[in-house]
């Protein structure tokens, strides 16, 4: 039986990346005084899985390093070795090295053996510094059998614990372990041979054998993860991942017994029944559904023209279709949503390392990591968020002496928080540092030659830091101070239709809040018309639509305003801004849509409201360029293009300010 291993490589790479991530997370959280045995186990399992997989595929660089790492972890969990911060640091560095090697294998580039040897030396130094240098450290991966986690099958025949493990319905993890036996695998000249070594386990072995025969190529190794004890008819069950909640207390208690340890091995990760799908496949589906929505609205329009019995039936069928399409659309959109923790997870490490570099003590609190955000946004969020977090660390949190002098706790706090509010996602970075320095910013702005009113409100002063080339840091450090960042941050966030607000209180810290739309692909819009042109105003921004009475309209200088809700609203005529050549209508004969975005509130004058509709946002910049006052375009039911109004940019700031004075 010859198996093309290449098809498993990608799965291995992806999985190993995940394992590395798990290791990193756990290592960061681990307490050196009293490490949680379950965490240690998880780290061990992750290292072990990588070693196992790399052994099978012949990625020797990984195998060697993970093996030594594993030895340390094994000692740690057996209380033979006390974890120290230094050891954790070395282990973290090792995960980095492993990540590098993994990428090198993935890209088929040169392996940096020196880096590996250095990493290995660092790890072995830990072992030798122990009183009793371990023989294991020197043993090659091929001799893994002395590792308790291994050899489950070799030992299994005589082991009563097998039954108890069965009763607990725990995973055995033999697939997890098995790939780690490269010798066996090589001998058999295919990846499966080692199951032959398991005669002592009739039930499990039989089911494997039978499965093996029927479909030999099915990749046990593609998911070298938890395995469930099986009956024959459940032969497929072992590919399912085990839920983390399954951990039974009994397992931890029995962790010192070798066999039960094997039972404890399955990497507890992910929900059952998840599959990996390439993003571009999902994007294709999203696009197709978008097209389907359009076709469906074309169909409904045609349906309305059909008379009689057939027409009724047709309308019924089309209504049914619309419902289904809407559900598909929702389902597809939810596929694109991923938890924001995907970006957040990188920050504990970043903060830890950076705090060390800057010699500050900082605690990072992450809240709302489970909040789901459109995948395309997640990718674009990483850079600006990293920048903001680094800024908070470097400029926000004061040096130790300063904190103590100000009577603040020694440890600075940064809170990274995500939440969904209405149709928006809010992500905030809050620090308890010194806050932004108003005078410094104003001075800097003036020295940069900006036109500044020294009496401007705080909010406007804070926005100045987003100007290009703006940095008030006294010295340029590794971390920040070059002033190239904040304008990029704002641009990146605006590129995903978001905005950023700053609240800062001197001496108490600052909060940067990023506001994002829920999804970039579809919005609820109000269709309005001016003459024959249709425009979409995002429903999110609309407060109300009204037909004004003559006594509500006031004219100030050349601007028309509307008195409503106890305030004056500046008005923008869509006819004028969109340059539609036709005779002006009187404001009283038009409809006014009152909108709000950020602090801007104004009214848009249109001819008619056509109705609410979900629209698929299409980029205008893809083939054309950015148009002022327009955020994108969409395709209407009749196949025509309609522009989506950019409520934030439709009105000029002066017009808003004028009302502020009125």
């Amino acid at each position, binding site marked *: 039986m010859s198996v093309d291993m290449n098809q498993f490589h990608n799965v291995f790479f992806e999985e190993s990346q995940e394992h590395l991530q798990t290791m990193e997370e756990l290592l960061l959280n681990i307490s050196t005084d009293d490490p949680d045995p379950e965490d240690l186990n998880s780290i061990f399992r992750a290292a072990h899985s990588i070693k196992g997989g790399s052994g099978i595929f012949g990625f020797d660089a990984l195998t060697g390093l993970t093996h030594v790492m594993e030895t340390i972890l094994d000692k740690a969990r057996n209380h033979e070795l006390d974890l120290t911060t230094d050891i954790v640091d070395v282990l973290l560095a090792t995960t980095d090295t492993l990540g590098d090697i993994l990428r090198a294998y993935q890209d088929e580039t040169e392996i940096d053996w020196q880096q590996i040897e250095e990493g290995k030396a660092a790890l072995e130094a830990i072992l030798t510094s122990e009183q009793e240098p371990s023989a294991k450290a020197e043993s090659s991966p091929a001799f893994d059998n002395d590792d308790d986690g291994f050899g489950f099958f070799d030992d299994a025949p005589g082991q009563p614990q097998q039954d108890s493990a069965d009763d607990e319905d725990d995973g055995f993890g033999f697939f997890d372990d098995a790939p780690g036996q490269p010798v066996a695998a090589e001998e058999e000249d295919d990846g499966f041979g080692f199951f032959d070594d398991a005669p002592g386990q009739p039930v499990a072995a039989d089911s494997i054998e039978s499965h093996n025969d029927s479909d030999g190529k099915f990749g046990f190794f593609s998911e070298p993860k938890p395995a469930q004890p099986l009956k024959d008819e459940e032969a497929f069950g072992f590919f399912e991942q085990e839920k983390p909640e399954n951990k039974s207390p009994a397992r931890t208690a029995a962790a010192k017994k070798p066999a039960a340890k094997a039972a404890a091995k399955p990497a507890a990760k992910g929900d059952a029944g998840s599959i990996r799908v390439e993003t571009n496949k999902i994007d294709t589906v999203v*696009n197709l559904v*978008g*097209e389907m929505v*359009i076709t469906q609205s074309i169909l409904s329009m045609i349906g309305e023209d059909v008379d009689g019995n057939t027409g009724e039936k047709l309308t019924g069928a089309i209504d049914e279709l619309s419902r289904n399409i809407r559900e598909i659309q929702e389902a597809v959109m939810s596929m694109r949503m991923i938890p924001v923790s995907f970006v957040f997870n990188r920050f504990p490490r970043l903060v830890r390392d950076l705090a060390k570099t800057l010699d500050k003590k900082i605690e990072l609190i992450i809240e709302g990591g489970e909040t789901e955000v459109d995948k395309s946004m997640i990718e674009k969020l990483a850079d600006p968020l990293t920048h903001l977090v680094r800024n908070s660390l470097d400029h926000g949190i004061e040096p130790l002496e300063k904190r103590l002098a100000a009577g603040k706790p020694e440890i600075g706090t940064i809170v990274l928080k995500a939440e969904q509010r209405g149709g928006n996602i809010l992500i905030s970075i809050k620090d308890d540092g010194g806050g932004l320095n108003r005078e410094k910013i104003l001075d800097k702005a003036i020295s940069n030659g900006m036109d500044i009113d020294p009496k401007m409100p705080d909010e406007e002063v804070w926005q100045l830091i987003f100007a290009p080339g703006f940095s008030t840091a006294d010295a340029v450090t590794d971390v920040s101070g070059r002033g190239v960042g904040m304008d990029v941050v704002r641009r990146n966030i605006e590129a995903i239709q978001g905005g950023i607000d700053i609240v800062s209180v001197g001496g108490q810290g600052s909060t940067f809040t990023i506001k994002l739309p829920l999804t970039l692909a579809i919005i609820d819009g109000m269709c309005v018309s001016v003459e024959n*042109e249709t425009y979409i105003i995002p429903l999110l921004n609309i407060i109300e639509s009204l037909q004004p009475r003559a006594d509500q309209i006031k004219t100030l200088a050349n601007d028309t305003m509307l008195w409503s809700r106890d305030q004056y609203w500046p008005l923008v005529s869509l006819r004028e*801004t*969109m*340059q*539609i050549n036709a005779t002006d209508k009187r404001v009283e004969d038009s409809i006014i849509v009152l909108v709000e975005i950020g602090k801007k509130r104004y009214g848009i004058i249109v001819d008619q409201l056509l109705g609410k509709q979900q629209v698929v946002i*299409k*980029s*205008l*910049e*893809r*083939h*054309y*360029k*950015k*148009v*002022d*006052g*327009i955020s994108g*375009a969409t*395709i209407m039911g009749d*196949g*025509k*293009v*309609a*522009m989506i109004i950019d409520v934030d940019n439709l009105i000029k700031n002066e017009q808003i300010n004028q009302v502020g004075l009125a």
Partner: protein
Amino acid sequence: MNTVSSQDAALAATVGANKEYLTFMLGEEQYGLAIIQVKEIRGYEPVTKIANAPDFIKGVINLRGDIVPIVDLRVKFNVSEATYNEFTIVIMLNVQDRIVGIVVDSVSDVINVTEDEIHPPPEFGVAFDSRYLDGLASVDDGLVILVNIERLITSREIGIFDSMNQQNEGSV
């Protein structure tokens, strides 16, 4: 004109010094553009206007889900009466990974031109500035002015590509 034939043309164009041009009429003159850049030819359909756009940018249309701008070269170069009816032709072009439609008076033919048949462009008598021209070629029924359509469409004069491309143009 389907994609296959334009791919074939692309192949032919790379194999020899032999290039295929699609010829079209603008006013009295016959022009040619490299056929590998032609995506398709279609009839004119109503466009959605864009605010603050020059008058030769008619607006955008929905090309199977893509929002594509339409440029009327007749208006831009003021060569003929810009009427829009069922005979008005739009050539859809692939330019630097984008799609742009251009309106011309009519589409005539596909011609084969070898490199040595191309003469330097004239300095006058042509609607376009000479930097947008590849040269002149003579065919059976007269002269064809070969347009470097990519350079024209990405130019600042047309102004539908963003500033990055305009900077590139400066270095050309």
